[in-house]
């Protein structure tokens, strides 16, 4: 039964993602903890790691806000179960909501009623990408409320330039990021319109902490924005410290000459992102985000 198999695989990805941090995020927090010198900030890092230990020991979601789920699919054009994938994601979400358990987050628009099972209209949110081959890659992101709040995008006039892009990132992080459980993972998108910049900023968030942009100018800009944000000393939970952010990742698309849109999406210290590779016959799968 491919339905049951897919549901069970995706549900197990949700379980791991809710309880443990991905390897790269855990390592980046360890590094920041080791480099921290301020007393209160050091204590807060101790609280963070104590919580991570307890979550694993008690097998519970490490943060109570397990988010509204967002799935980013890269499906091989010849993956044989494309027709049941969406349904399987919805069923797996309901299953994991019960079994992990996940918090009931999805609220239907206008009635503002909580559905009680984390599914609803277009929820979980699914982004599709068709790639060559016959296997399936899924990234899941647990979009918590606190770290979704600072997100925004804006269409700049091109003469505002990349200076305008940088300023938009700094304003967003200093104004709202402080409340979004720093040290943040910062995703920046650059494109033509508000929508493309926003989605690229989310894709930037899905890139690993510590990964380097393939484009040398973007890599420079990532490094310089990170250094600039770190010099502000926002610290863990916004209570000051020697650093501010885990990383700044930029993703971009060729844009209209008359617009330069920028989007910012942030992930909290507890950025919960899970990645899985699934074979065409569903016989084997590997969670690649967690060790």
């Amino acid at each position, binding site marked *: 039964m491919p339905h049951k198999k897919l549901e069970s695989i995706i549900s197990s990805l949700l379980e791991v993602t809710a309880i443990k941090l991905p390897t790269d995020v855990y390592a980046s927090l360890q590094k920041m903890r080791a480099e921290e010198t301020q007393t*209160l900030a050091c*204590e*807060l890092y101790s*609280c*963070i790691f*104590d*919580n991570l230990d*307890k*979550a694993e020991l*008690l097998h*519970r*979601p*490490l*943060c*109570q*806000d*397990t988010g509204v789920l967002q799935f980013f699919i890269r499906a091989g054009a010849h993956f044989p179960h494309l027709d049941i994938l969406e349904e399987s994601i919805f069923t797996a979400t309901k299953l994991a909501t019960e079994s992990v*358990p*996940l*918090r*009931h*987050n999805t*609220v239907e628009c206008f009635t503002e*009623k*909580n559905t*009680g099972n984390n599914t609803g209209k277009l929820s979980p949110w699914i982004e599709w990408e068709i790639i060559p081959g016959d296997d399936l890659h899924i990234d899941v992101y647990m979009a918590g*409320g*606190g770290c979704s*709040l600072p997100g925004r995008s804006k269409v700049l006039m091109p003469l505002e*330039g*990349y*200076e305008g*892009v*940088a*300023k938009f990132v*700094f304003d967003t992080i*200093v104004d709202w990021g*402080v*409340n*979004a*459980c720093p040290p943040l993972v910062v995703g920046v998108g650059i494109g033509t319109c508000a929508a493309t910049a926003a989605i690229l900023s989310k894709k930037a968030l899905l890139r690993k902490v510590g990964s380097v942009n393939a484009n040398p*100018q973007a890599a*420079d*800009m990532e490094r*310089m*924005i990170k250094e*600039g*944000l770190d*010099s*502000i*000393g*926002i610290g*863990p*939970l*916004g*209570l*000051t410290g020697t650093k501010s952010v885990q990383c700044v990742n930029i993703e971009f698309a060729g844009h209209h000459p008359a617009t330069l849109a920028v989007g910012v999406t942030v992930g*909290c*210290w*507890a950025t919960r992102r899970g990645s899985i590779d699934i074979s065409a016959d569903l016989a084997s799968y590997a969670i690649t985000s967690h060790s």
Partner: protein
Amino acid sequence: MTDKQIITTPISNEDISNLKIGDVIYLTGMLATCRDDGHRRVVESNRFPDFDLKGMSILHAGPIVKTIPGAGYEMISIGPTTSRRMEAYESEFIEKTGVKIVIGKGGMGAKTAAACKAFNALHCVFPGGCAVTAATEVEEIVGLEWADFGMPEAFWIMRVKNFGPLIVSIDTKGHNLFELNKIEFEKKKELALKNLLPHVHYSHG
């Protein structure tokens, strides 16, 4: 830690009037969750929970709770939520309920700071995201009200022991730690941008 400063409910003015922003305290006693919908119900609809909040504490949080058939509820995971969302309602909430300690994450604004000063109350932050630690500091869920809001928004009443660390972010004099930090962050931001902007002038030439 032997020098934990523990505040026990019911909380009197004297218990908290000497606390200053940046102080770290722990809470023992009764704590109820209340966030967006609960604040709106109290402030807009003038409806109050049966549990009297006078001298008590609230936590801006939407927990994960497991129902144990025949045995009540088990707290699974309960970290604080963003307090700033409640800014528009908090001052009136404090005035109407007599709540003494409001716990959440991140800072609150000038209206709440004025209410803390006027009504002798505190805003404190619990380290955001540390939700399993917080759950292990909940001894028992003793009540549930406003279940119609759904699990995260409902009014969960808990007995807690040494709940913390809680960092005082607004004290009873109205001093506001996050607002003070923000002034510093803004200054440093301007300096960082001044240094950065000359290096990101990417153009076709």
